[in-house]
């Protein structure tokens, strides 16, 4: 048993931590978030130059041969500052799909540019009726000679506003909720027939609804085999769950520590709030939830690195706990900060919003409890 990070991972952890401390105070985050494109191009370029974008890609792909543990190291630190740069959308989702299913030509044209920060790719998988069922895909791709024609609508596509390419999950055969018959395509975001409706999300990020009307895509742009895209989608979604959970753990650490600090400073009834046992116990609960989430995060990540199929059940367990505990920690932090916790002025509320959003992405805590108990 060894939970120690490697020397390289420790160095990266420290450098990300420093980056977040230096660049991600609340004022700066609010400013970056409110201006287009919703993140800092300067920071994104810096992240590419520091090699962070290539950590989880193989050396042939232009990366450094790391895995989900390296992503965990990054995302946990990102979570401590609620970093806005589109790492999840590009590296875990878009890049993750191409890494797993892209043809050699696609990998070669996309991945090095992605890793250098010159190109952006996202993943369009959810639909209005699908809720959290990733196999529920109505958007259709019809074969037409050497092309496919895509029609349908995708929902809550992260960072689509800035994406140059979109990996779109389509139905090529079977019924709407079959795992078989799902195919993934890489399309240009500016293709004829694509319409993006962009909007901000609760946590200050950006997402889009995307309509596809007779969008032509060459069959060479298939990501993985035709009809067999589900396995890739599931693997990418699992990676996204691990990454978001790591971010959530970072955010929960900030919330419980800020709360401990605040209650020691704030005085009511002639005592610091932290003197009151009822508040102490609530903070102990917050701390315990954080530690338990961290444990399950490590477990699910290490199991996934060993065998992603066997790890599926633990990934469901993780997302359930992260959703439930994240909201408990967020609500508790707000409650213990009193009125100030409900304002935009303290960072507490912003971290709480992020945890709320994380629960709503890639399946909420109820959804994963149901999956967990039925496996």
């Amino acid at each position: 048993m060894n939970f120690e990070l490697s020397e390289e991972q420790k160095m990266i952890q420290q450098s990300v931590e420093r980056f977040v401390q230096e660049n991600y105070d609340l004022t700066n985050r609010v400013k970056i978030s409110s201006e287009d494109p919703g993140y800092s191009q300067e920071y994104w370029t810096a992240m590419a130059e520091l090699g962070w974008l290539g950590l989880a890609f193989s050396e042939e792909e232009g990366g450094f041969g790391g895995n989900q543990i390296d992503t965990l190291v990054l995302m946990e630190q990102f979570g401590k500052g609620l970093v806005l740069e589109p790492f999840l959308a590009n590296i875990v989702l878009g890049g993750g799909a191409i890494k797993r299913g892209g043809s050699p030509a696609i990998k070669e044209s996309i991945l090095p540019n992605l890793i250098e920060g010159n190109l952006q790719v996202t993943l369009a998988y959810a639909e209005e009726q699908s809720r959290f069922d990733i196999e529920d895909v109505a958007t259709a791709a019809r074969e037409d000679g050497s092309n496919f024609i895509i029609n349908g609508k995708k929902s809550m596509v992260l960072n689509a506003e800035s994406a140059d390419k979109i990996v779109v999950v389509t139905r090529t055969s079977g019924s709407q909720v079959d795992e078989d018959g799902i195919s993934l395509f890489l399309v240009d975001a500016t293709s004829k027939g694509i319409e993006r409706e962009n909007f901000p999300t609760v946590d200050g990020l950006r997402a889009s609804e995307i309509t596809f009307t007779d969008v032509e895509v060459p069959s060479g742009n298939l990501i993985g085999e035709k009809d067999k895209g589900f396995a890739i989608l599931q693997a990418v979604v699992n990676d996204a769950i691990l990454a978001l959970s790591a971010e959530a753990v970072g955010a929960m650490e900030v919330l419980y520590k800020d709360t401990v600090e605040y209650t020691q400073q704030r005085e009511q009834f002639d005592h610091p709030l932290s003197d009151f046992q009822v508040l102490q116990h609530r903070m102990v609960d917050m701390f315990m939830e954080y530690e338990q989430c961290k444990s399950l995060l490590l477990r699910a990540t290490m199991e996934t690195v060993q065998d992603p199929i066997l790890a599926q059940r633990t990934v469901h367990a993780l997302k359930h706990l992260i959703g439930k505990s994240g909201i408990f920690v967020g609500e508790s932090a707000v409650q213990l900060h009193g009125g100030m916790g409900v304002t935009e002025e303290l960072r507490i509320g912003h971290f709480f919003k992020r945890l709320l959003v994380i629960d709503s992405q890639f399946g909420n805590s109820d959804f994963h409890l149901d999956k967990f108990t039925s496996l």
Partner: protein
Amino acid sequence: MHVELNSEDLAFREEVRTFFEENKIKDGEDYFSWRESWFKKAREKGGWDVPKWPAKFGGPGWSPTQHYIWEQETARANLPFDLPFGLGMLAPILMNYGSEEQQERFLPDIRDRKVNWCQGYSEPGAGSDLANLKTKAVLSEDGTYYTVNGSKIWTTLAHMADWIFCLTRTDDSGIKQQGITFLLFPMKQEGIEVKPIITLGGSHTVNTVHFTDVKVPVENRIGEEGKGWTYAKGLLEHERTGLAGLSKSLVELEQLKDKARTIQRGNGNLMDEASYRSKVGELEIDLLATEFTELRSLASAASGGEPGPESSILKLKGTEIKQRIQKLTVEASGIYASAWGDKGAGPSFAKGGTAGYLNSRYFTIYGGASEVQKDIVAKKVLGLTTGKSK
């Protein structure tokens, strides 16, 4: 013991329903003139414009059962908006502790919804520990006016208010609860600065208010100097009962169920999913119980007088129920829970739910945080003291 409504109560309910039905806003009708005429007609019914006021001051003098019926019906009807500050918070204080002159001066405008009031209680250093307030009021040498300096926080709708009722400190030599004086003064005057606080749901309802050398004539003081805490305390208990909002929650729960039934899941809908349904069920069970806790408290008030410490239970349970309804609304939104505001995406059921949930976190903080409410129940109801009693 019985819970059925008697024939008189049933007739009353019918009368209320008919009144609401006959006075609904019509298509194309101007909202504010409708609102004005609604209150006028309600007044002609015999004080229905001020249902909670005692008969002596023009209220309808209803029985607790009639009040309960009114609450239930108003939660379902689309009534003109009303604000609680003047009508429900200041008016009872004026009636109990104000001079006849003050009652004549302020109550008519409150009743006519002519003057908007705000409540100047909490301060940056006085939240749960309200008695710790520091806003200073100094009496002039000739004894004709006070000069007020200090800051209030969480002042709801201060930016729309014409007047404020305000707790100030006139003496800090004794215990905190002594030396507090209750003053009334206009908001639109030199020396008052209102600054917005934006809450997590992205809205501006609360404010900070700063007073610099605000002059308040001594005739605007309620009761005696230094006795303000006693006057305000009775009102806080009123406020806590009102905050439970159970009738509204019952309606909102029904709306939530209707909404969940429109969200298709396989061959059924969201209410067919065991995890979601059981949470809705648990919520409804708590609501059924709390509704009767409220009725019991109303009945004891009818035979006794002021609502007592049991009102703390209602605030605790009622606000928690309201938050859980909001949380389930967010969960119903599914992937659209993260879409923000009107600009957000997705079907109409998903819009606005998350902002409502975020703002609902305030419910267990304002009007006495839940932790403080539990302290009150522990001390006053269970008779508990601790070595480190705080």
